[in-house]
C-alpha cells in the first residue's frame, strides 16, 4: 500500500479522513503533471484489470475512468446494463462474482441504487471504486471539485462555496459537502425547500432558500443539474420557475464577487441552472473540472491498487 492510503476501496468521502483526501489530491497533482507531458502514459497498473461496470448510463465519468485506467497502462473492460447479463435478470452479486472470477483487480461501479458500491466492496476481494451510487455519493466528483478549487485558489480552508440546486437527489452535493467541510471550506447550500431538506443543516453546512442573498459572499458557486429523470415534478412547479428563482443568470452574476468561480458537474441544462454565456465564460471552471477529473481518477485507481513508484510519492 502507498503510504497514507490503506483502503481497498473508495466508497464515500464521508468515511475519508482529511489526510486521505489530501493524499488523493497530492497524488492527482503528480498525475496532472504527467498528463501535461508529450507521453502521457505511465506503467503503474500494467497487468492489472480494471472493469468499468456502468449499470446506470454515464458519458463523462465513464470515459474519464476508462481513459484514466488506460493512462495507467491497465487492461480496461467496460460494460453497461444493456450489453450485460444484468438485462437478463442476473443479480449484481452474481455479475460481480463473475468479474472477480475473471480476476478483475478493480471494479468501478456506477449504479442507480445508493449503497451499490458498498454492496460490492463487502463481498469482493477486488478493489471497488464508487463512480456514483443513486443519490448517495460520487466521491471522485467531490475530489475533482476540491482539486479544481485548490488549484485555482491555492487553498480550500475558509473558501466560501455555494452549492445551488437539486440537493436532495444529488450525490455530487453530498460528496462535495464532505470533502469541502473536512478541508475547512464554508459551505452554503441553496435551493428550493422541496429539493433541499432542512436536515442538511445537521451535516455541517448552512441551508438557505435565498440565492440572491447568498451571491455576494461566495468565492465559488457550484451549480447542480436539475435532474429531470429523478422526477422533480411534485417538488418544483416548472423548470421556468426554477430558473427564475435559482438559475445563475447574467443579472445575478453581476452581483457576485468579481473573481467568483463557476462550477458545474455536467451535463448542463443551459439557461436553467446557468446562463449559457457564463458556462462558456472566463470564470467558468467547467472544462477544468473535466480535465482534473482524469488526474483525480488516475490517482484513485493508483491508490486503491496499492500503487507505488510515481515521482513524488515517497
Amino acid at each position, binding site marked *: 500500500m502507498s503510504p497514507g492510503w490503506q483502503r481497498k476501496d473508495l466508497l464515500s468521502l*464521508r468515511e475519508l479522513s482529511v489526510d486521505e483526501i489530501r493524499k488523493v489530491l497530492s497524488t492527482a497533482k503528480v498525475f496532472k503533471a504527467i498528463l501535461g507531458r508529450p507521453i502521457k502514459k505511465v506503467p503503474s497498473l500494467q497487468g492489472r484489470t480494471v472493469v468499468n461496470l456502468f449499470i446506470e448510463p454515464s458519458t463523462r465519468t465513464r470515459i474519464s475512468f476508462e481513459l484514466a485506467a488506460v493512462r495507467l497502462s491497465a487492461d480496461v473492460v467496460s460494460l453497461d446494463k444493456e450489453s450485460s447479463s444484468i438485462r437478463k435478470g442476473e*443479480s*449484481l*452479486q452474481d455479475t460481480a462474482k463473475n468479474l472477480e472470477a475473471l480476476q478483475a483487480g478493480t471494479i468501478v461501479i456506477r*449504479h442507480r*441504487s*445508493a*449503497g*451499490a458500491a*458498498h*454492496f460490492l466492496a*463487502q463481498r469482493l476481494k477486488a478493489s471497488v471504486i464508487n463512480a456514483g*451510487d*443513486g*443519490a*448517495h*455519493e460520487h466521491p471522485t466528483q467531490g475530489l475533482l471539485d476540491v482539486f479544481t478549487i485548490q488549484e485555482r485558489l491555492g487553498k480550500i480552508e475558509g473558501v466560501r462555496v455555494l452549492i445551488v440546486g437539486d440537493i*436532495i437527489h444529488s*450525490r455530487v452535493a*453530498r460528496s462535495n459537502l464532505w470533502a469541502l467541510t473536512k478541508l475547512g471550506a464554508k459551505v452554503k447550500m441553496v435551493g428550493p425547500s422541496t429539493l433541499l*431538506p432542512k*436536515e*442538511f443543516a*445537521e*451535516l455541517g453546512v448552512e441551508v438557505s432558500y435565498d440565492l440572491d442573498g447568498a451571491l455576494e459572499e461566495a468565492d465559488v458557486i457550484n451549480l447542480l443539474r436539475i435532474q429531470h429523470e429523478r422526477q422533480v415534478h411534485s417538488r418544483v412547479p416548472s423548470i421556468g420557475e426554477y430558473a427564475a428563482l435559482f438559475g445563475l443568470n447574467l443579472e445575478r452574476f453581476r452581483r457576485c464577487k468579481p473573481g467568483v468561480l463557476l462550477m458545474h458537474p455536467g451535463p448542463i441544462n443551459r439557461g436553467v441552472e446557468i446562463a449559457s454565456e457564463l458556462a462558456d465564460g472566463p470564470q467558468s471552471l467547467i472544462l477544468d473540472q473535466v480535465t482534473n477529473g482524469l488526474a483525480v481518477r488516475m490517482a484513485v485507481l493508483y491508490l486503491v491498487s496499492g500503487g507505488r513508484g510515481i515521482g513524488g510519492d515517497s
Partner: protein
Amino acid sequence: MRDIFLQGGLVVDPATKREAKGDLLLRDGKVAEGKPAKDALVLRVDGLVVTPGLIDPHVHLREPGQSAKETIASGTAAAVAGGFTSVIAMPNTSPVADGPNTIAWMRQRAKETGVANVFPTGTISVGQKGEQLAPIGSLRQAGVVAITDDGHCVQNAELMRRALEYAHMFDLPVLDHCEDTSLSAGGVMNEGKWSRILGLPAWPAIAEEVIVARNVLLAEMTGARVVCQHMSSAGSIRILREARARGVPIEGEASPHHLSLTDELLEGYDTSFKMNPPLRTRADVEEVKRGVADGTIRFLATDHAPHCVYEKEVEFDEAPFGVVGLETALGIYLTELVHSGLLSLREMVVKMSSFPSDYFGLGRGTLATGAVGDVTVIDLERKWIVRKAEFASRGRNTPFEGRELRGRAVLTIVDGEIRHDLDGRAGLS
C-alpha cells in the same frame, strides 16, 4: 396422553390473578387440578416462570405459495422455539387469502403440519388491491380472526370506512398497515438525517401518522375495532394515546425492532435492517416504549417476515421489506421492557397472551383450570447470543444477529404436548 406436571415454577397467569410459586398440572391437553398420575412427566422448573402460552398477533407464514421463504411447519417451529404457542397469520400469501377456500386450505395444512396454533386472517380487499371489499362474511365463516391488507394499506378512505362498517357487523377486528403510499412514495428508510446521508429514498413518519389519524376517525365513527400494526413513530403513539383516552376502539401494535433499533444502523446498507415501516430515530424508539409502558400499545407482535437469503442479498432499495422475529421477540421484549423496568412481568404476559386471546377470541391466554394446555416456561435470566444459523425458521433475515439477549423460552407446550424443550428437560430432544 401422559400428565405433565410443572413443579416449582413462578406461575404468572394474569387472567386468574395468579402470580406465585406453585405447580401446574396438564391432563388430556388441558390445565387440571389435583395430583399428577403415577406415570406423569414431572418437570422441575424452579427459578423459571410459567405463563399461559404466548400469542403473536402478526406473523407471515408464507404458505401457500412462498414456501422457499417459510412454511407453516417451519414458521410454527420457529414460533414454539421462541415461546409462542399461537400465531395469527397474515393473508399476503400466494394466492392471497381473500376467500374462504384459501383459509380452509391453510387451516387444514396447519392441522397437518403445524406445531403451534395457527389463526388465519383474511384480506380487507380482493387481492389486497384496495379496490373492492373481500368476501368478509365468508372469510369470517371460514374462521378468520381478523381482516387485514397488511403490507398494502387501503389507500381509499371510503373503502376503509365501508370495510370497518362491514366488519363491525361481525365484531371482526380490522388490522391496518398504516402507510399513505403517496407520502411514502417508494421510500425504503426513515426520512431524516440518515436518509440524507445515505441518499436512500425516504419513507417519512408522517406517511404512517396520516393513516393512524384516519383510522382513529374511522374507528370512532363506525365503532369498529381497529389495530394499527407495527407502530414506528412517536407521532403515531401520540395520536393513539389521545384517541384511546377518548375511548375510541383503536389499538396499537409494537414490534421488537421498532422499540430497540434506529435508522443509523443502515449505515452499511445491510438489508437485514430493511423492514416496513422502517427503523426510525431514538426519539421514536423511546416513544414507542413509553406507549407500551403506559398502555397506549397493548399488542407486542413480531411482524415475523421471512425471506430467502438470495432475495435479501441485493441492492438495498431492491431488497424486500421484512425481518424475522419469532425466535428473538421474547428475548428483546424481556431485555428492552421488563429487565429495563418499563413493564412488569405480569404486564408483559397480559400483552403477549391474555389480551390478544381475549381481543381476537382465541379462547386461550390463561392457566385457569380447564383452559387449553398452552404453556410457556421462561428463563428470565438466561443470557444468550442470537445466531441466525440456529433458527428453526427458514428465514435468516434478522437485525439482531450477534446480539446478547436476557431471557428465553425454555419449554413450550401446545395443547398439552411439549413442542420446544431447549434444555432437554423432558428428555424428548
